């Protein structure tokens, strides 16, 4: 494994020996241009398009063996970022590299070293394929195993994810949600990836099954020394499985750091508000729970506010927040925040 020179200053954030590097990645979604418009654009005419900047100038690195959590409200770009890292989407600008090798070349994914587990195992498995064939398809195509050995290869992965290998001839509908998610995990891991992207892997599962899948994730990522990105809106799950967490708001990373520090003492007002609005188990019936609700809603990404995207909802907003987009500031080792007034947030915060 090649270690990268540490990046101590600038947008890169604090020094992290990077395994996955995400360098200034942006992704725009806009309407498809018609042939006429394309020609007009080529000729230098200005073509009016309204595009959404789903991911905006994200620079991140993930260390070997680390789990990075990605959190934020729906529409904040966390799934898009996950897909950019996984090579499912190509970045509009910037690049994603794993161990120095780019994930995409000319809009095509050129590596099998990153694999994805999606939220809904009902949708991500082909209903007409036997689950054993689904798991074998990739490894056979990429010569990780031979057709002759595929059965034993698949059986081995079934056992590792806690499924009975006699089930390989069944179809997805014959399994429960939790079992289907295990199959999806087996399919991803059978490709022997170094990096695993998990996009809300437990969101559609029942509470008692969630714990089983989280335990499986912890066991496998450690056992196989996997580097992973864990995307979830469920903060307690992210807190549990991640080493570091990145908080996103409208396509930008607003805070990044070790889980214990970010959860313990958020430096960005949005992080603080997000954590404050998570319902917690309340035990004292007489106590009227105070939710620290965030005022208002996430603005439309089609017309984001000026300056800091969070300023219209931010209790700490000052004049500069309305005009100037905050840069990334290094708060401490491994920790960055994009906020003009993070010092006020850090001093305001009463731990507890």
């Amino acid at each position, binding site marked *: 494994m090649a270690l990268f020179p540490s990046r101590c200053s600038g947008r890169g954030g604090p020094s992290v020996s990077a395994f996955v590097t995400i360098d200034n990645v942006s992704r725009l979604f806009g309407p498809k241009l018609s042939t006429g418009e394309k020609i007009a654009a080529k000729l230098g005419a200005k073509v009016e398009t309204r595009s959404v900047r789903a991911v905006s100038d994200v620079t991140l690195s993930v260390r070997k063996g680390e789990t990075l959590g990605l959190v934020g409200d*729906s529409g904040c770009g966390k799934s898009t970022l996950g897909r950019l890292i996984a090579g499912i989407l190509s970045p509009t600008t910037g690049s994603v590299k794993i161990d120095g090798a780019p994930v995409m070349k000319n809009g095509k994914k050129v590596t099998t070293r990153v694999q994805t587990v999606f939220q809904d195992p009902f949708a991500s498995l082909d209903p007409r394929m036997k689950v054993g064939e689904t798991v074998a398809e990739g490894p056979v195509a990429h010569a990780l195993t031979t057709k002759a050995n595929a059965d034993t290869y698949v059986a081995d992965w079934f056992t590792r994810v806690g499924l009975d290998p006699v089930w390989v001839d069944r179809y997805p509908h014959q399994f429960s949600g939790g079992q289907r998610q295990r199959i999806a995990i087996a399919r991803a891991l059978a490709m022997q990836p170094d990096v695993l992207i998990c996009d809300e892997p437990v969101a559609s599962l*029942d509470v008692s099954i969630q714990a089983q899948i989280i335990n499986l994730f912890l066991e496998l990522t450690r056992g196989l020394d996997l580097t992973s990105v864990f995307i979830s809106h469920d903060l307690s799950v992210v807190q549990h499985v991640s080493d570091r967490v990145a908080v996103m708001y409208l396509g930008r990373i607003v805070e990044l750091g070790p889980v214990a520090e970010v959860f313990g003492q958020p430096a960005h007002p949005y992080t603080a508000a997000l954590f404050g609005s998570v*319902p*917690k188990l309340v035990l004292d019936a007489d106590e009227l729970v105070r939710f620290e*609700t*965030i005022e208002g*809603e996430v603005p439309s990404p089609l017309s984001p506010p000026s300056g800091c995207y969070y300023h219209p909802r931010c209790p700490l907003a000052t004049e500069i927040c309305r005009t100037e987009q905050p840069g990334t500031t290094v708060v401490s080792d491994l920790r960055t925040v994009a906020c003009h007034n993070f010092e006020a947030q850090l001093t305001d915060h009463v731990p507890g």
Partner: protein
Amino acid sequence: MTDPVLSVKNLTTHFFTRAGVVKAVDGVSFDLAKGEIMGLVGESGSGKTVTGFSLLGLVDAPGRIVAGSVTLNGTELTTLSGRALQSRRGQEISMIFQDPIATLNPMLTIGQQMQMAIDAHERMSKRAAMARAAEALTQVGIPSAEARLRAYPHEFSGGMRQRVAIAIALLHRPAVLVADEPTTALDVSIQAQILFQMRDLAAQTGTAMIWISHDLAVVSSLASKLAVMYAGRIVEQGPTATLLRDPRHPYTAGLIASLPAMAKPGMPLTQIPGTTPSLLSLPPGCPFAPRCDRHTDACLHKPEMTMQDNRGWRCFHPVAQDAGVPA
């Protein structure tokens, strides 16, 4: 305690399918006082939604309420005619659902839909109806309500749409509101806003609520009492804090223990083995026994509800005291 607004006794709803009889709700009993919020917790297929539907008489064939009674303000609902029930639905008891986009008609403005809901139970001028609708929207925290009455559902965000659904459900100040996972599809920040408002509304209007959810944390911050369902039956019920701090049923204890907040970060979570049983082929006796580490031969019989003070559980081998969340 004063007379309950809603009293449910031995409610039993079965679905008569080709594959067999699905006992979706099997002997559910609880009382609800004015302004009280009860959390109904369970996993998918545990019968919590069908319980909600049964209360409003919304169970369609092949399902049928086969036994039990639902008494709302002294009136028995299960024996009412369709028309008599309809006049109460929306007026005295109403329901909100997880997905507001499926509840609202995309072709009508919010104002038109709210007016229809008002007209269904009351005669008033259009002007008065619109004023009433605007007031209801304001109550659930929708800004510039009068202008928003002219908007269509697609012009609202998910959170705002759910507020509209709540406003419609509360138009006639029903005695009971059944809320079926209404915040599950929403972002946490919006969920917090809505939970906060619902608690205030219950206190202000005296509407009692049944809050159906799979999320223990959500109901714990809202409900004063809890009922935990498993395979069509309430396996444990009682005051929220008591149940969470000191669960007696191994399933309740298992659910609490499996929360990530209960384990040290990065350590394995306590997991309940196995999966929920199919309601078509329930094991004889206690349906949780196959997943339970405390089961014995006694569990081959169906446990009855053991009542103690203001709580109850269905288990032959209840968990010892103080197995839940450390205080």
